């Protein structure tokens, strides 16, 4: 019986398994840096981790606070600028990039800009950042989804997936042949894209999740792999790594904040008592 794990840990570990040794990997914000750290430490020691801020080839020691967190490791091999990080991607030197999803459609196109009307938004999200550029030119893109939604039509197309499906991405002549989203990992399952139609289908389902739990989130008739398999549960080594490296990811944001507040209040309280 292996160690018990949280949904967030399961997702991060599934993401880390998409990083292979010797790959050049661009990590976005959120959980990818933690997944990158795990891959580098456990199964892909020669992968080159990259941040679009121009930081290349590092070994993470702490959970990254943001996309330019050079203080979450000690030193790195190559310090370039953001412009060059993107032109390097265009020239084919990035094997895989990881992007978070707010809205995704059936062909893997992403919206991370706005929910509702652009000028008068219901929810104004961050925007593209590097997402549109990386998803255009990385050899492949891995999508991660913690709280995003599947929609029939995006409110705003921020980053190009397979456009209208079929060969429309390749046919546009604007993207490297064969590029595009290869996989989408959510807290419920793992989705892939049909090689012909480029429509998303369910390839793996996480342990304990019912098919209906997934289907209720998806506003179209989701295709399901003939050989739908259960996601391999994380092993102890992977779980222990995440918990030690990024305990905040393990417990989740709200519990982390709760414990942090308790910790800081405790410190203030004990300071008062020593003064008295």
């Amino acid at each position, binding site marked *: 019986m292996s160690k*018990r794990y949280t949904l967030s840990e399961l997702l991060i570990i599934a993401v880390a398994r998409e990083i292979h040794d010797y790959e050049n990997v661009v990590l976005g914000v959120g959980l990818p840096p933690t997944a990158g750290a795990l891959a580098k430490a456990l199964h892909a020691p020669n992968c*080159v981790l990259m941040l679009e801020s121009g930081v290349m080839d590092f070994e993470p020691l702490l959970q990254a606070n943001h996309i330019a967190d050079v203080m979450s490791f*000690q030193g790195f091999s190559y310090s370039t600028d953001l412009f060059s990080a993107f032109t390097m991607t265009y020239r084919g030197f990035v094997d895989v990039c990881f992007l978070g999803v707010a809205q995704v459609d059936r062909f893997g196109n992403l919206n991370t800009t706005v929910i509702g009307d652009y000028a008068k938004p219901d929810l104004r999200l961050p925007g593209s950042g590097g997402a549109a550029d990386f998803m255009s030119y990385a050899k492949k893109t891995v999508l991660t989804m913690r709280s995003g939604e599947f929609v029939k039509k995006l409110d705003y197309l921020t980053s190009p997936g397979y456009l209208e499906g079929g060969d429309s991405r390749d046919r546009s002549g604007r993207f490297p042949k064969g590029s595009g989203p290869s996989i989408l990992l959510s807290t419920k399952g793992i989705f892939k894209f049909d090689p012909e139609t480029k429509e998303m289908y369910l390839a793996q389902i996480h342990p304990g999740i019912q098919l209906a739990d997934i289907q209720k989130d998806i506003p179209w008739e989701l295709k399901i792999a003939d050989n739908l398999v259960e996601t391999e549960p994380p092993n102890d080594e992977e779980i222990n790594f995440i918990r030690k490296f990024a305990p905040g990811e393990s417990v989740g944001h709200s519990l982390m904040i709760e414990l942090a507040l308790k910790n800081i209040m405790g410190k203030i309280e004990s300071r008062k008592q020593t003064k008295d």
Partner: protein
Amino acid sequence: MSKAIEKVTTAQEAISRLVQDGDHLIIGNYTLGACAELVFETVRQAKKNLTLYSQSGIFDVEVMVAAGLVDRLVSTYVLRSGGKSGGSAVERALKAGTLEMEDYTNFNYNARLTAGMHGFSFSPVFEGVMSTDLFKVRGFMGDDKYKVIDCPFTGKETLMVPAANPDVCIVHVQRADKYGNAQYWGAMGSVQAAALASKRIIVSCEEIVDHEVIRSSPHHTIIPAFRTDAVVEIPWCAHPTEVVGHYNLDKFAYGMFQMAAATEDGLKGWMDEWVYGCQDRAAYIDHYVEVFGNGSLDDLKAKPYYSAPANYGSAYTSAWDENGRERTMGVTLDELETIMEERGLFYE
């Protein structure tokens, strides 16, 4: 996918494997720190039909042209030895009709590499050169040397140069690690653009250093490991030119070269002695010491003038403090796991 992880090899092996007849070959260095030994090895291996790129030709271009390796030369400046009464290998080859040349300005040449480095197919440059024969006189590139378009934003006539993406760059730097992270400082010239624009990169360095040296000074890295194909440690590689922090320009040896290069026979004699007559850089240096004595080299050795180290430090490198408590939440791992259990966070 990254390339093979450890790339340390010899000049002989690197040139043999990575430079092909007919290649567009670029000399990455500019005026100082020449990759002389990589040039000499290319000459010894008699690679043929090269298109040679050099920001500013010095003895390196002379030697390659004199050896008959180069069909076409793209440059902005070529060496001439001995003034009006002297000559150069480039001039002799042009006269003999064995060499074609395309002249650019320094800026326009560099712009071609910068475009190539960044994956653009062309780059805008400034228009003044349109009033010169650099623009009007076309060599082997013909119409493709320069083109003019209307700027889509201002409508103004705008001059364009095509990107350059040479097949292989040979370049010398101060230091590199065995993985191919190459560090260079001093006059930056177009060294980085020349390397990164190219499809293959051969790095020679004064010294191979531990990866930790690179990791603690990433701002000096001009070529990241995943772009480098071969790393060769060659002390004194750039002699008779200088390498900042290692040795000065050897004015005497350079003068001897220039005297020789003024005539075809002179240059042939110099190359027989210093290029063909020495199987590698160690043999070249041995020969130098044999002829001029050790003192001549000692006089050139640089006395250190170190740049101040850049501090890449942070307050801590673990999420857990010295008492095993998580820094933000203030609990130990055991306590944290108990809380996770109590809150029902565990899956299933």
